[in-house]
C-alpha cells in the first residue's frame, strides 16, 4: 500500500470522530426543550432494537446459527442472567450446536 492508505485512514478517523464529538461537546451545559430530552432518552432502547434486528439472524450463512443464537440470548436474558452470562451462554449454545453439524 502507498501513502494514500495513510490519507485514507486519516480521513476515516476524522469523519468518524465528528459525529461522536459534536453532540457531546456542543450540547454540554445546554438545556434542551423537554420534548427533545424525552426523545433522546428514548434513543437507547430504540437503537438496541434496531441493532439487534434483523442483523442477529444473519451472523452466519446458515440462518439456524442466527435463529438458535437469538433464542439462546433472549432465553438466557429472560431468566434474569447478567450481560456476561448472556454473552458467554449464547456462545456456548452455538458452539455445541456447531459441533453437531
Amino acid at each position: 500500500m502507498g501513502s494514500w492508505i495513510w490519507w485514507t485512514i486519516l480521513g476515516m478517523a476524522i469523519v468518524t470522530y465528528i459525529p461522536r464529538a459534536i453532540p457531546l461537546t456542543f450540547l454540554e451545559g445546554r438545556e434542551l426543550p423537554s420534548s427533545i430530552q424525552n426523545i433522546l432518552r428514548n434513543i437507547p432502547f430504540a437503537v438496541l432494537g434496531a441493532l439487534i434486528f434483523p442483523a442477529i439472524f444473519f451472523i452466519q450463512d446458515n440462518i439456524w446459527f442466527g435463529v438458535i443464537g437469538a433464542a439462546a440470548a433472549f432465553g438466557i436474558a429472560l431468566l434474569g442472567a447478567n450481560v456476561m452470562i448472556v454473552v458467554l451462554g449464547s456462545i456456548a449454545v452455538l458452539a455445541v450446536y456447531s459441533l453437531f453439524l
Partner: protein
Amino acid sequence: MEQRGFSAGLKAGVSIAIGYFPVALTFGLLAKTTGLSLLEATAMSIFVFAGAAQYISLTLITAGVAPAVIILNTFIVNIRHFLMTASLNEKMQPDARWKKALYAFGITDESFSVLAIQKEDNLRTTFAAGVIVISYGSWVVFTALGHLIGANLPEFLQAAMSIALYALFVGLLVPSMRGNRKVVSLAAIAALLNSLFFFTGWLTTGWAILVSTLASAIIIELIASKGGRS
C-alpha cells in the same frame, strides 16, 4: 449510593471486550489478505475504532475505490453515532469539554449501549473511561494479533462467537423491557422499521439504523405526551 468510577467501568466493559475479540481478530486477518501491513491495519483500529466502517473499507480498497469515496462511505456508516452521543449527553455528568471530546472518541454502538442502559443518571466520566479503555484495548490488540498470527479461530468457535455482540445487545435490552411497555414498544418499532429497510433495500445499513431509531423514539414520545403520561 457511591457513584461508580473507572474500575466499575472496566468491569461493565468486559462483555464488549469479549464481543470485540473475534471481530477484531478477523479484521486483522482480512486486512492482511487485503494487503495492509501490520502497522497500517493496527493504525486503522487505533485511529478509526469503528468496526462496520473498517470492514467495509477493506472491501472498497480491494475493489480499488477512490479514498474520497471510502471516506464518504465511512461518514455515512457512522453518522448514527450523532444520535447516540446526543442521547448520551443527557446521561453523563457535566464535565469539561476537553474531557468529553476525549471520551467521545470511544463511543461505539457497544460502548454507547452499555453506558446508556445504566440505571443511574449523571454517569461519571471515569466510568465511561473504564468502559472505553477495555473495549478499545480489545479492539486494537486483537486487530494486531489477527494480522500477526494470520489465522482465524477454529471454525466452530468463530461461528459461535459471531453471536457475541448481538447477545450483548440482547442482554442489555431485556432487563429494561421487563414490565415496561414503553421500552418494549421502542425496541419493537425500531426493529420492525429497520427490518423493513433491510428487506426492501430502501436504505443502506447506516441510514436504516439512524432513521428507524429516530422514528421510533419520536413516535413513542408523541404517543406518551398525547396520553398525558410522562
